[in-house]
Structures are given as structure tokens and as C-alpha cells.
């Protein structure tokens, strides 16, 4: 049994790909007999320790998010509480998620100073030529220079991570995301409106999700194919552009804007469609197309990032990220979608992706790193210095500070005096019915 600490700024009650990944991975690891805790910052109305479905213990630490849902990088500010939690829970492996989660980054650094094994999972792609990516990559390189192992959700993401953080590719495993197929089942009877070809789009209305492309596609397809009906769900800053386009070109009879779609209603929206359209401009691993394919929809998607690795070619039509090619692929998909083997596709997806597989493969990574030796202080200093002559020196000073603070904390509160927490797994396994409904009901809206 391995005691695992999953940490990220993004967790329930927020809901997205990363949050779902951590939650599902945690549950499956508990099922496999490990002890799992999750650390995140406080959310509105949530602070302290909570138990979630199936006994997943979550520490909502009292840190206030600075921007959106990410806390400020304070380095030593979080050390006392993290040390308490890690020692109290007798953690073996610290597993951080997402490059933009600085809470996770801080804990990775402290965990190395305390002698724990560390793993990092990257969920996003970052370029090299814009200011924000430049800074994220620089900090990521520092955080990951001492990491024991990294995980990417796609092969493209692995290449990207290896270059961004200057990591040895042998220390990066590719473990894809997954989908809970039991929540995304096909139901062709729910297709509505009738006698039309329904194209479903569900995404956040942002530039990166390709809403500008969707605006062009909407105009062209609705004009050329009066039998097509668009069902568009999601909210965001670019929603106004879609609304304006629909009004300007009188597309009200061929489009339906749903606005925010609660997580538990996504399946119902998908079931209404024949075709799922994804116009994203960048994706490390697009969960949305797997969910749509699981619901038996014919998928049309832009071929960007790691999307081409996700589904076999007979399930998806890949288009270049321009309106003309996307329209062409939609036209190709219309006759196919009418005669789609929806149930057969659902069964295939079920075999392809499952959270149990993800947990099993992640578990292998944990066992592998637990067999390795810890780095010496000298090696850690060298790793810090590898970030640059001036920047590296600054990082070395931070490392020294971290070690000094740890010694002070060890002196003030020796780890023997910290009370150890109980193991939930045994009680849970004996009386499963008593703990929760084993169903994750998403409340957050997309």
C-alpha cells in the first residue's frame, strides 16, 4: 500500500478536466488499496478537512486564491501546514497536477526537502513564443528540475513537457486521461429536433476553444444545409459574438444557444445530437470528443495538439483549423452520422479508456520511483544551478532557506509528536454502502 498525496489548485467544487482527473484517479487508487488524500486551497464555503465520495479525504487549506483559482507562489508560507499534513498522513508519494498550479509546485519543492518521492502530471500544452508561456515554462523548469517522474496525458504533451522543463524523456510516462463511460451512454431516441441533422457543440466560449472558427462555420453550414440544426452549450467571453452572428444572419431557426450546461446534463445534450463538433485551437488531450464518441456521436474535430492520438480514424473526422476544411468535414459527416453504429462505438470506447487503467499505470510509476534513491543535497544544488548563473544562484538561496525552515520546524514540533491519522480504507472496504452513493454528481456549470 502506498500513501499518496494528490495536490492541485484546481479541485471540486470547480469542475474541469484536471479536477475530474484528480477525483477519479483518487477513487480508483483507493479501490486498489492505497491511501489517498487531496490537498487544495479553500473554496467559498469549503475550508478544513472534508471526506468526499468513497472516503476520499480532502484538505481545503486556508490559502486565498490570488488570480482565478490559483494561489500566489510564496515558497515558505505553505511549509508549516504542508509538513504537518504530510507527516500526519504518513505520505510516501506527492503527486502534483497542472503546470499553472503553484500550490502543487510549492509542495513538490518542500516534499523533496522532506525526502518524499514526487510525481507531476501535465495537462496542458504551452508554446514557447509568448510572454505568459515563457514565464510559466521558466518556473516549471525550476519546480521540475528535481522531480522523480512526470506524467503527460498525450505523446505531444510529453514532447512539449520535455522541451519546456528540460526533462529527460525517459522520466516522462504517457498515461492518457479517461472517461467514465457509464455516465456517457448513447440514447438515439432522445435526438431532438426530429428530421434534422443535429450538431452539438459544448465548450467554454473562449478563443482557445475556437469560438471564432465556430462563428464562420455556423454561417457557412446553416446557409448551405438548411437541414442542419446546431445545439451549442457553454458560456464565456466569446458567447456574445455567437449571439450577434445568429441575430445578424437570422439563424435562430437553425441554432439553439443553451448557455451554461451543468455537468450532469452534458450527457442529455450530447444525446440530442448526431454529430459532435470540436473547434479547439489547442488541446493536450480532448476529453470532450471521447465523451461525445461514448454517447455514440460522429465526431468532427480540428486536428491540433494531441487530438489525433485520442480516437481511431474511423470514429472522428479530423479537419485543419480553418472554417473551410471544418465545413467540408461536416458535410462528409452528415451522411455518415445518419447510419452510425452508436452502441457499437460506445462499447469500443469503453474498452479504450477507463480510470481503472489510468490508476493501474500510475501505480506502476509510484512503485518504480519508490525503488529509487533520494537525491543528495549536492545534486539538488547542482540542479538548482542548472537553471542559470544568476537565477540558479537565487534558487539555491531559496533551497537553503527551505532547509533552514524545515530544521526550525523539526525543532519546534518534532515529527514524533505529530498525531497520525487513521486509515479509512479498511472501514470503507468492509461497509461500502455506508459511505456515499459512489456517484460523482457535478454541480459546477461548464
Amino acid at each position, binding site marked *: 500500500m502506498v500513501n499518496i498525496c494528490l495536490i492541485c489548485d484546481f479541485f471540486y467544487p470547480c469542475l474541469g478536466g484536471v479536477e475530474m482527473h484528480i477525483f477519479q484517479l483518487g477513487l480508483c487508487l483507493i479501490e486498489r488499496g492505497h491511501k489517498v488524500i487531496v490537498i487544495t486551497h479553500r473554496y467559498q464555503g469549503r475550508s478544513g478537512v472534508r471526506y468526499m465520495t468513497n472516503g476520499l479525504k480532502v484538505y481545503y487549506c486556508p490559502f486565498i486564491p490570488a488570480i482565478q483559482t490559483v494561489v500566489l507562489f510564496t515558497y515558505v508560507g505553505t511549509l508549516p501546514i504542508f509538513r504537518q499534513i504530510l507527516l500526519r498522513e504518513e505520505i510516501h508519494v506527492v503527486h502534483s497536477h497542472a503546470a499553472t498550479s503553484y500550490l502543487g509546485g510549492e509542495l513538490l519543492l518542500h516534499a523533496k526537502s522532506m525526502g518524499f518521492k514526487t510525481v507531476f502530471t501535465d495537462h496542458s500544452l504551452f508554446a514557447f513564443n509568448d510572454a505568459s508561456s515563457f514565464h510559466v515554462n521558466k518556473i516549471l523548469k525550476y519546480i521540475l528540475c528535481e522531480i522523480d517522474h512526470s506524467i503527460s496525458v498525450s505523446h*505531444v504533451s510529453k*514532447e512539449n513537457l520535455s*522541451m519546456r522543463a528540460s526533462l529527460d*524523456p525517459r522520466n516522462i*510516462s504517457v498515461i492518457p486521461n479517461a472517461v467514465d463511460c457509464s455516465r456517457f451512454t448513447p440514447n438515439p431516441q432522445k435526438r431532438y429536433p426530429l428530421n434534422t441533422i443535429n450538431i452539438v457543440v459544448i465548450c467554454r466560449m473562449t478563443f482557445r476553444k475556437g469560438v471564432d472558427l465556430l462563428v464562420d462555420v455556423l454561417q457557412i453550414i446553416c446557409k448551405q444545409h438548411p437541414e442542419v440544426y446546431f445545439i451549442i452549450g457553454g458560456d464565456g467571453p466569446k458567447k456574445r459574438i455567437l449571439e450577434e452572428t445568429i441575430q445578424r444572419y437570422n439563424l435562430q431557426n437553425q441554432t439553439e444557444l443553451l448557455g451554461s450546461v451543468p455537468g450532469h446534463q452534458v450527457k442529455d445534450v450530447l444525446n440530442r445530437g448526431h454529430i459532435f463538433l470540436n473547434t479547439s485551437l489547442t488541446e493536450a488531450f480532448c476529453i470532450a470528443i471521447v465523451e461525445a464518441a461514448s454517447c455514440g456521436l460522429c465526431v468532427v474535430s480540428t486536428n491540433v495538439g494531441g487530438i489525433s492520438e485520442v480516437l481511431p480514424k474511423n470514429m472522428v473526422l479530423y479537419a485543419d483549423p480553418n472554417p473551410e476544411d471544418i465545413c467540408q468535414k461536416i458535410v462528409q459527416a452528415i451522411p455518415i452520422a445518419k447510419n452510425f453504429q452508436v452502441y457499437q462505438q460506445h462499447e469500443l470506447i469503453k474498452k479504450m479508456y477507463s480510470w481503472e487503467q489510468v490508476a493501474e499505470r500510475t501505480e506502476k510509476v509510484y512503485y518504480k520511483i519508490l525503488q529509487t534513491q533520494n537525491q543528495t543535497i549536492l545534486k539538488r544544488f547542482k540542479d538548482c544551478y542548472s537553471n542559470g548563473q544568476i537565477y540558479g544562484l537565487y534558487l539555491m538561496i531559496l533551497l537553503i532557506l527551505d532547509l533552514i525552515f524545515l530544521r526550525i520546524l523539526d525543532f519546534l514540533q518534532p515529527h514524533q509528536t505529530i498525531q497520525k491519522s487513521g486509515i479509512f480504507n479498511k472501514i470503507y472496504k468492509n461497509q461500502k454502502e455506508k459511505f456515499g452513493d459512489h456517484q460523482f454528481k457535478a454541480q459546477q456549470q461548464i
Partner: protein
Amino acid sequence: MDYFKYCPWDGYRFSENDVQCFICRRPKYQLTSYIQEEQEQKKWEKILYEKQPYDDNYIDETFLQSVQKQDNTNNGPDYKQLISKTSDLIFAVNCVVFYLLSYFLMLHDMVNDQLQLYFWLVAAITCLIMFSVVKKMKTLEILSNFKSIGIYISILLLFAPVMQTVNQTYADNTIYVLTSVAILIYIFLKDYDYEKDFTELDVSQWASLVFSSLLASRLHNELQVFLMIFASNLLFIFVPILQRSIKQKYNSVFRVINLISTIGLGLSLLFFSYFLALLFFGCVFFITFVSPLQIIWLYQYKNTIRGPWDLPNVKQYD
């Protein structure tokens, strides 16, 4: 013996003779040291939907093949093009020098205030007529613009006494230091692309308002204050709009105007100080001919890596 084609750490493409990475100095590893033995194994595919008989950290020979590194040694910018692009910067410098020159004349009462007033009014009307011609405006629109200018002048005249006294208590040194900073902000943060239509004042234009109001506080009467702020708005807010319109349609006309104004300004500076004239011509020479050479030299160090993670160019709606 097969070796890595790209450096896994920075994407540098190895040539046949390379023994180490040019960028990170790491050795060029043999593929066999990384790649597992493929004994009776199915060929690895770059897919996620199928579990393959390889470890999750397996590295294939196709690793980083999708990365494209732009070779900048032969694709640098053209010297002539760069020289032509400096004309915008020269024009901005000319405007600032011309403005400071007129301030100097006013401060030392070297030119009659009435004459200055006529000059700036004529300049404003000329600019407006040129703008109307370039934009092919209708008579009603032109009259409407004249009306707006009339209202604007009235408001500015009302505010002139306030602008004269608002910064009067500050020491001369403070005013000139703040003015220098604001001028530098104007020069460095000015939008030289002129891609967007004028909708609101940007940082550089706000900076121009700041230094004009600072300088105005040192003048002797309200008319001079009015003229200074009016000239500032004309030179730093309206003229760039006119410049954009002229450049879009008559680029060669703009270049001729720029050349004449540069030579004229340089010669007029000769009347005041040989040193200043020399400094001005030196500055123009440096911006026009030397700085493009520096950019070309620096371009060889520009490291452009493109891969599947880059966002495609998509038309954006605002």
C-alpha cells in the same frame, strides 16, 4: 549505429557531424540506449486509444519529429525594408523636436504669440483638410468636424488658466525631469503599427498630454498655455491618425513629407545650437541606418521552435 535526430531537451536538430547539442552541450545519444529492444513486437504508434506492448515512458525514434526549428541565418529581415520601417520612428521624433522647439520659442518670447496662434490654427485647418481629402469625406462630415474643433478650442480656452496654475508650484527641475520621462514613454510606447483604428487614447498619448501640461505651467500667459496644449493634441493625437491615413494610400508622399520635415528641423536647429543640430542628425542617422543593422545581427540568435502546441492563425472577432 542510429543516433537521436533531435536533442530531446531543446529540439536542436543534429547534423551528421554533431557529437553534442549546439545549445545545451549534452551529448548526442544513441537511439539504442533509449529505445527498447523490439523483439517480435508490434511497431509503436503515436496513439492513446490502444495499450501497446511498450512501457509508458517509451521513446520512439519519431520523438520530437513534429518540432520545426526555424533557421534564422538565411531568413533574416531585409535591410531596405527595415530602413523604410524606421520612418515612423523618425516622424515621431520629429514631432517631439518640433514641439520642444516651439516651446523654447514661446518660453523666451522669441516669436510673437499672435503669430504662433495663426500658425497653429492654419496647421490644424490644413491637417483637417488633408484628412478630409484622404478619407474622401462629404461636405457635411467636414463641416461637422470643423464644428467639433470649434467646441474643443472653446473648452481648451476655458481650461487654459487652470492648466497654467495646476503645476506651477513644482520646481523647474521636477518639471523637466518628469517631462523627459513622459517624452521617453511617448516615444517607446507609441503604437507604430497603426493597425487599429483610433478608438481611445493609449498610454503614449496620455504621456503626451502629461508632458504638455507640465511644460505649459512654465509659460507666461494663458494664450501660450492654450497653444502648447493645442499643439500637443494636434501633433501627438491627430497627426498620427492623419499619418496612418496618408501611409495607407500614399506611402511615398508620407516619405517625402518625413524627409523634408527632418531636413527642415535639423537646419532650423542650427540657428539655436550646432551641438543640438549635430545630435539630431546623429540620432536620425543612427535610427535609420545603424539600428536596422543591429536587428539583422541580433536575428541570428533568435531561436524559433514551432510544434503542434502552437496556436494556429485564426481570424478573431472582437
